[in-house]
């Protein structure tokens, strides 16, 4: 294809159709592009109707904006997925072991594998979690691992999302839409289902209930409310699981438990899937100005009366400063070399790394340690001289605030453009559920695609779109 050296997941590097796409391509070639274009429009209309919208910060005029959906699926073979899911499993196991250790004996610091300052100087470390053992030993009930691909066998972890990863509703809606639009495609291709996710999520959350729970555990989803950018997802997941969607004002401490107001009085909650950040979770223990949280929920949690999913303080595991130590962390806790590799990362807090980054700024991507959503980052190769100079200043002023990575040649997957198939860069966020019964990754995930030609930024806040992600049966 046109992109020299870049791995296209459909056409490889040399334009030869890859096996996972064989059946899809046969179907595609038999389709009338006009019909597909109509289907693309229909799909967009479907999304508008179901109301999947996404609020973009700093864009008042378009408070609710649709994330564009592309009808060409991203297809992963069973073998590719097997290796990937083994790597994810290993990484998530390590993250949970790391969190337990960091909030207990801190063996990894004593062993000299990570510097103490990495934890002690980290705002994501939550002292109130010290000595707390969450029910079932699970810290990250729901994880999203952001992956990029650079070749047939090369998947790299870009970021771990161990706090409150979002996007799973898109994974589900994208599949639902494809099933409705192109049912015939799914009879030619045997695609592993993702539709069981809500059921699996509920089962997984229930398995993490505290010992105080009697009978069938009561689960609820805590949302910050309708003004939150992911409110749709909160409502969607509560609905799909058949559990209550609650806000902080619906909850209070009753008989030593966190209970929700119902028409028949207060009912205790065993497992709270919260989509409220740590700082806002409990005004009695954290930010006293928060109106989104539940006063005293941390006290109930520490007394063993509720499961909070994900556990407070898990941000210490997905912090970008920690990220660069993940290969060590995986090895320390699993005793195995990491199956999934990290993107090479320079920690600007280290003088030698900083010097290198300053010298090669126009080749690198520089990110804020605590940033997310693609805000506040520098993409060296596309930055102007002025941008580079400004960033150089920022780096020198607060080196510890930044990490740098090489610009990777991310794989592409075709999108359905006006002129037919056109390659665009993608990433992948599989969703992982953790319970005492084990770790399971839903086959597929959320594929985000940079719709602009040549663009590497896939964030929906920066104009990215999504695709249905297929993992084929063996």
């Amino acid at each position, binding site marked *: 294809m046109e992109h020299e050296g870049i791995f296209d997941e459909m056409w490889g590097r040399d334009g030869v159709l890859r096996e996972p796409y064989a059946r899809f391509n046969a179907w595609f070639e038999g389709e009338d592009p006009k019909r597909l274009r109509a289907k693309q429009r229909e799909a967009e209309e479907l999304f508008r109707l179901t109301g999947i919208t996404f609020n973009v910060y700093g864009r008042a005029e378009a408070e609710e904006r649709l994330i564009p959906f592309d009808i060409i699926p991203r297809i992963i073979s069973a073998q590719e997925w097997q290796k990937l899911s083994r790597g994810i499993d290993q990484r998530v196991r390590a993250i949970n072991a790391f969190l337990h250790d960091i909030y207990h004996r801190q063996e990894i610091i004593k062993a000299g594998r990570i510097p103490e300052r990495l934890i*002690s100087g980290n705002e994501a470390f939550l002292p109130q979690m010290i000595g707390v053992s969450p029910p079932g030993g699970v810290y990250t009930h729901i994880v999203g691992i952001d992956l990029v691909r650079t070749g047939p066998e090369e998947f790299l972890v870009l970021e771990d999302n161990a706090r409150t990863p979002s996007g799973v509703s898109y994974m589900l809606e994208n599949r639902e839409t494809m099933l409705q639009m192109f049912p015939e495609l799914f009879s030619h291709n045997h695609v592993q289902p993702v539709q069981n996710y809500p059921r699996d999520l509920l089962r997984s959350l229930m398995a993490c209930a505290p010992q105080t729970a009697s009978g069938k555990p009561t689960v609820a989803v805590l949302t910050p409310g309708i003004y939150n950018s992911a409110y749709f997802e909160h409502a969607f997941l509560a609905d799909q699981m058949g559990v209550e969607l609650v806000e902080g004002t619906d909850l209070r401490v009753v008989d*030593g438990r966190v209970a929700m107001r119902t028409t028949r009085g207060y009912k205790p909650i065993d497992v709270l899937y919260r989509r409220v950040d740590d700082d806002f979770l409990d005004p009695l223990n954290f930010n006293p100005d928060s109106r989104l949280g539940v006063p*005293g929920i941390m006290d109930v949690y520490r007394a063993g009366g509720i499961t909070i999913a994900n556990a407070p303080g898990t941000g210490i595991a997905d912090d970008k400063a920690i990220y660069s130590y993940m290969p060590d962390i995986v090895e320390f806790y699993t005793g195995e070399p990491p199956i999934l590799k990290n993107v090479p990362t320079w920690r600007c807090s280290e003088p030698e790394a900083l010097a290198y980054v300053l010298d090669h700024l126009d080749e690198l991507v520089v990110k804020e340690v605590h940033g997310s959503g693609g805000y506040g980052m520098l993409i060296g190769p596309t930055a102007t001289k002025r941008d580079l100079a400004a960033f150089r200043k920022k780096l020198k002023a607060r080196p510890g605030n930044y990490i740098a990575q090489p610009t990777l040649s991310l794989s592409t997957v075709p999108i359905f453009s006006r002129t037919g198939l056109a390659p665009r860069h993608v990433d992948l966020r599989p969703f992982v559920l953790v319970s005492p019964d084990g770790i399971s990754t839903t086959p597929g995930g959320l594929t985000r695609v940079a719709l602009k030609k040549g663009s590497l930024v896939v964030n929906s806040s920066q104009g990215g779109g999504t695709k249905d992600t297929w993992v084929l049966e063996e």
Partner: protein
Amino acid sequence: MRLKIRHRTRYVFDHPVSYGLQQIRKTPKSTHQQVVYDWTTRVAGGRKELSFEDHHNNIVELLSFERDATELVVTSAGEVELSNTNGVVGRHIGPAPLWLYRQVSARTRPGPAVRALTRAAEGPSDIERLHALMKLVSGAVAYEVGTSHSDWGAEEALTQARGVCQDHAHVFIACAREMGFPSRYVSGYLMLDDRVEQDAMHAWAEAHVDGLGWIGFDPSNGISPDERYVRVATGLDYADAAPVIGMRVGGTGEALDVEIEVAQQ
């Protein structure tokens, strides 16, 4: 020495409290220098929801107000048998790593005044430097009841040159951390020789010295705690060890009355 302690806090409200919680840290723990007997917390106008031990190893109780309460009375009482260890509390125990006590907290953030006082604390050994610091703190912050604010930090107390035991403790902690010692705030009871009735708990500081462990320093009285001191709660500063942290809906027009009795048995 055996002390009998009774601590009663009474809140009266002009308008009823529709919902409210109090997180209290008023229960002392037995350690090698103090043994606690028959300690009870009684609540009128509210109820005890739960209790747990926090990351500083403090006993925490969560209380809730009765619906539409106009009065809440919390009475803690018990006896404590004390021995004099010359301020030595001993090796670090509890879930928190020692490095936590090197962290700067809101009320112990150092400024120019804290740094200047730190530089003046000299001595041939760690212990002597800390004792020198204790004297400097008492000299720099005059003990004046009712003139400081409970939200003052170390730097403000030093700049204003006045305060109470809480301010003394914060200044000592901020300086000790600047000197490189893990340091923490202690709230507790102090038996006074001339009277039984008091109107506030006492506060002092502890610093961790390699080889000796935690050692107490009471800048307000210029001594290391002896058998008259009952340790109740510790933390990075007042906010972690405060006897009461509360929230409520309604309950305007609060009147607070605190009675503390510390008597030798």
